[in-house]
């Protein structure tokens, strides 16, 4: 019943579809990506070489990779996260008067969403830099200590970026927030989409989602532990050998922008290391 003086916004007119898309993106692609991402990163616990192979697999997409990243990861996360902010503003938390467990989870879903938003934005900046334009990387991201991950020196640059106590602590918080958010979001999706309907089915779903959450939490902490405990010198040697071998076998096009430089200095201070050229 909109009048000319009071037009309804796009969001209001398509509220149902937009909210269903928000719910869906939480699982596909974001939740699915996060699960794969955690599993891939946990492979660093096995050995730097294993992790490097995983990363080579991902980077075998070549110039398609940025498109895949943006279409299937960054844009859905930005859509879900920014719309999440709008949704959070539309509710009024009332756990003071109604301290039920499900109401507390409603609040936690929103708090962990906010933590996830801050964490993901800074995490992508820290490792990846968001946009691979040299001016942006050189003048904005690297002075902030970002864009530290180099795909062809995967474990060593990861390990270097994760040194200290503050960064691993912040990562642990961010990871656990994301995991809770996904596990609890899975449960609420079951209501949103009508998957678990009876109270008995909902109770079973609670166990199921708690199990999924616990496994993901372990995976996340394993990946974090793996990253923190990398022997960066040894890792860099393995990675460089793998790089040379692949280039010699014509399995890989040489690409210095995906490598850490200067290599000799590697592991002591990638943060201070001057990286030239575009990536």
């Amino acid at each position, binding site marked *: *019943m909109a*009048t000319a003086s009071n037009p*309804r916004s796009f969001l*209001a*007119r398509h*509220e*149902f*579809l*937009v*909210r*269903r898309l928000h719910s869906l993106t939480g699982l596909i692609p974001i939740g699915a990506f996060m699960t794969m991402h955690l599993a891939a990163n946990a492979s660093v616990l096995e050995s730097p070489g294993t992790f490097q192979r995983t990363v080579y697999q991902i980077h075998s997409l070549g110039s398609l990779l940025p498109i895949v990243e943006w279409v299937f990861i960054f844009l859905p996360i930005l859509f879900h996260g920014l719309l999440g902010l709008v*949704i959070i503003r*539309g*509710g*009024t*938390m*009332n756990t003071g*008067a*109604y301290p*039920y467990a*499900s*109401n507390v*989870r*409603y609040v936690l879903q929103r708090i962990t969403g906010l933590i996830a938003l801050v964490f993901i934005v800074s995490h992508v900046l820290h490792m990846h830099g968001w946009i691979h334009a040299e001016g942006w990387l050189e003048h904005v991201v690297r002075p902030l200590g970002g864009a530290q991950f180099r795909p062809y020196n995967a474990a060593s640059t990861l390990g270097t970026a994760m040194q200290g106590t503050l960064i691993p602590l912040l990562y642990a918080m961010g990871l656990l927030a994301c995991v809770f958010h996904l596990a609890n979001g899975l449960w*609420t999706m*079951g*209501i*949103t*989409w*009508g*998957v*678990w*309907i*009876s*109270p008995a089915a*909902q109770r079973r779903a609670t166990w199921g989602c708690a199990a999924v959450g616990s496994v993901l939490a372990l995976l996340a902490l394993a990946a974090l532990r793996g990253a923190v405990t990398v022997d960066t010198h040894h890792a860099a040697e393995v990675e460089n050998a793998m790089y040379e071998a692949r280039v010699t076998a014509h399995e890989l096009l040489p690409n210095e922008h995906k490598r850490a430089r200067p290599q000799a200095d590697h592991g002591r201070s990638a943060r201070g290391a001057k990286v030239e050229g575009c990536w």
Partner: protein
Amino acid sequence: MTPESQPATLRQFPHLRTPDHLATPTRHTTPMADTEHGRIAREYFEVRILRQDGPGQASYWERHRVKYEPDMNVISALQKIAAHPVTIDGQPVTPVAWECNCLEEVCGACTMVINGHVRQACTALVDRLLEQRASEIELRPMTKFPVLRDLVVDRGRLFHALKKTISWVAVDGYYDRGPGPPQSQEEQEQLYPLSHCMTCGCCVEACPQYAYAEVTRLEGETDEAFAARQAATYDRLFVGAHAISQVVLFNSHPTGRHMSGVRLDALIAEGGIQACGNAQNCVAVCPQKIPLTTSIARAGRASTAHTLHKWFER
């Protein structure tokens, strides 16, 4: 309850037992007699009420002292205040306004926020409330609806939601169409609880996604113009769990089902089921124990199916 303390009918028909939350406390649990359990014998108790003289006016707290009697409920306390409308400081005031009707928790008229929790005043027992908080009983009007006066609110938005979602079975017509199709026992058992909804508003009062809304009349606005503007505003806001559950009830009814598409269209319009944030306070506070989360899940599934159906059948 010991058998002797039960009324004769209950001794004969034990299955007629009153549900626990409605049960009258037995004498020995009242604060009067129970000094050995740390409760103080009392002659009076205090009631703190959030009052408001009229729509749009400022609200203010007022304290009353009420003579204690065993087995009172909040309505009987309010009756005593009305009979002797004097505040605790001896100020004569206008009687506090409230609504009630059935006095047995089936009409929903007496719904208010008692000690911070939304519920029916007629089944809020003073003895129990004083066990919770001995110093006073706090009464305030529901916070999601416009206050008309004191504890009386305009719950019209709840009924508007039922109209928006066509929550009835349309049987009007010129022809006798004969009896409707029968309902299976299983369906009856599933739907009967949903029919207990008394549109009391507890579910939406506790819902974090249901925001307070009040439309105030403009200078010189006619009744019709005001009603239309109010309806247009309510249309855009969250319908609430009760309406979602009523859609499930009438969409499952063998005759009501004929209009299921129209109801689902209303449920996916602005302010529809998508505004629910799955906090599940509704189901926790519903005095009729209606399985609202089950209804929301059912309606959620049906809404998505309906939308897909419309995309591919048009």
